[in-house]
């Protein structure tokens, strides 16, 4: 397993943990396709809280544009991976 794969796996785990914190279900129940309107309880009210929790867990900060665009775990993972290399 190369470093990039390890980083991606660790980012994914942190994002799923943030989603789990907000939605109150086990982290392992969330996949990369989960997101706004795709997942029970992940509505527009929960969405901004999830994004802020992801930032806190990963120590990253999304731009204003990203906060408006990111709508799924996969999309967040892509941006986080690009930010952290």
């Amino acid at each position, binding site marked *: 397993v190369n470093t990039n794969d390890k980083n991606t796996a660790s980012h994914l785990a942190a994002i799923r943990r943030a989603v789990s914190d907000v939605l109150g279900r086990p982290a392992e129940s969330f996949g990369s396709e989960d997101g706004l309107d795709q997942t029970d309880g992940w509505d527009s009210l929960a969405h*901004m809280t999830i994004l802020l929790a992801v930032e806190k867990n990963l120590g990253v900060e999304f731009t204003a544009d990203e906060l408006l665009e990111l709508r799924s775990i996969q999309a967040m993972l892509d941006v986080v991976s690009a930010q952290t290399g």
Partner: protein
Amino acid sequence: MKQAALPLIIGDCHALLFRAAKTLPCQVAHVGPITADAFCRRQSPMRRLFDQLILQTGGVAQRTVVLSISEIDIRAHFWRDLPILLARGMSLEQFVQRRVAGYLDEVQNFINETGVSRVVLWGPPASLLGQAPHNDEFPTAGSNRTRNLLRHTFNHSVAATASGVSDRIGFASMFYDMIHNDFTSNSSWIPDAIHIPEDRVTDCCERLEPVLNGIPLSLGPALSMVPELAVELCIAPYERPHRDSPREFFKNWLLTENTKQSVTIAGQAFSFVSDASVPSDAVGVSSLGLQVRPFSSPASPP
């Protein structure tokens, strides 16, 4: 000869007013608390319900449809997202413009896909509610005046954008009839703090009818007559404990016409904290005279 189908007025609770219309024959469909944001997201539960109701009416091809959508965005959701985005450099008008552009794009898609002859956007009425509910999802506050200023910004943005999107989109609003010169709400228009009462329905029909018949915009008093506002709003950061881990703190922001040093949420007082991370270029004076500044910075001298 086949009679033209009645206009369909569909959307949030403000659509329900038109059930009492005596002078404007129309059909009314209540979706529930649909927001413009949810209307734009086709998989959202409210949009799916909206589409279902459109099907149940037998389709809307060649009909005029009035969309009563967006009041909830401005009364509640904008206040949750705006301070966070302002603190990251997006201006208030950029935010509103972006929301309006997305909404109008989706209205255009709706026109293209359904064959609707004309869509009229029924603008958000003024609101008397002074504060949003304070909870984890809405850690925000705003006086009815600040909310009305945001409605005004929204109206400006719709007026500037709608005609460029399609000549089949109109806009009608009672908003400017419902506010005083200082932008506070006139309570006689909103006895329950949110809804226009039925005894005003004829006024609303008179405002709506010409727009149904093709007048592109009817905002009431001309926007140009609204004076420069010169109102100052501030981004006020505060920290609150995580609901499950009280020793952990989450930072939140308020956007408020503020003179106080603290805010009370769910009965608990929080002080605003100084926040160097709010960039100075996030602040400024909008073309409507709204000034936004970080809470920790002193106001500029007049």
